């Protein structure tokens, strides 16, 4: 798994920061992130690999329901809705 731990932070982190900032301030961006990540590609200058990453976020819904605990105090499956 690639995890550069902050390497080359400025440009790459800037994309993430902008996505977070936009979602925080615009309900429409949240909806796009949820329903049509393709629509974010141009706006945030996402590469194909980054767009694929967004798309694959949906795969985790099913996975997270399987014994992933978000709080360390209980043996639960994710509380995803």
């Amino acid at each position, binding site marked *: 798994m690639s995890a550069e731990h902050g390497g080359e932070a400025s440009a790459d982190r800037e994309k993430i920061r902008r996505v*977070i900032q936009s979602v925080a301030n615009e309900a429409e961006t949240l909806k796009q992130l949820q329903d049509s990540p393709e629509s974010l590609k141009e706006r945030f200058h996402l590469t194909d690999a980054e767009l694929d990453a967004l798309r694959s976020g949906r795969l985790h*819904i099913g996975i997270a329901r399987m014994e992933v*605990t978000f709080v360390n105090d*209980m043996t639960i499956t994710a509380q995803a809705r």
Partner: protein
Amino acid sequence: MTPLISVVIPVRNESDRVATTIRSIADMRSTECELEIIVVDDASADGSCSRLSYKGPGVSISTHQLKERVGVPRARNYGAYAASGDLLFITDAHVRFCGGWDRYVLENIEQNRVIAATVRDVASAFKGYGCSLAVPFMGTRWNKTPPVGTTPVQIAACIGTVLERTLFEKVGGYDSGMILYGAAEPEFSVRCWLTGAEIVSVPELEVYHRFKLKDERDRHVEELRLSIVHNCLRFGLLYLDEVNSLQMLRYFALAFPEQAQEAFSLLESSDVWQRRDFLKSTLTYDFDWFSNRFDVKNLAKQGAL
């Protein structure tokens, strides 16, 4: 001289349980080590800590009443920094310790080592031998296979985390940017590893834990869902690369639609990027090292659970 062990217990509205917990911790010792029990009452409304006492040798109880709720990670920090013992045993208010727990601690503690106690459910046969990280959503999974002897594990559960006080201070305690509840403990464990310490499961050291019943758990999670979502996102943004971060963002946007916008807003106004830069410049290892050390894989790419 036997070192003093400081047991740190954050409490919030658990007045009916914390006295039993303290009694168990004190009574189950098998050595003559001195024990300091630090109870941090996180602004309880039920007077949790007002009448705590233990009549027996070698035990002192120190209670700290916080006027405003600070959340579990900061309450743990408060207790740890108030402690005077050489060793910290960080646990919860609703536990019982196994017989001879202090001996297991003293026999296995080392410099730069965190002990992960085995967590047992009081109502079932469940035992958890530390936890493993689930990337990219930064949750955890219990290790259910009994290890043979003392074995490295990724994460020590918050219910049973033991380490030298000097190591706690060196690592920097729990991330005070984590709000109220969730994700702070696995993040602390990851940071211990990245600081150069190790975490080992000591199977014999058992903490009996009262896991919440379903209704109670649902209420608890509902109340704290925003902080859980925020803290998991913060955890991921501190360590993950861009691709995994983007996966994580979309996952939480889909899985927690009612909390996503507010959680993102909290992140935006937080110190998460400064914290990331700070960790990058101060930790001995990077997250890639941790991933390789434990063969941590993105669960979606791994293809199966």
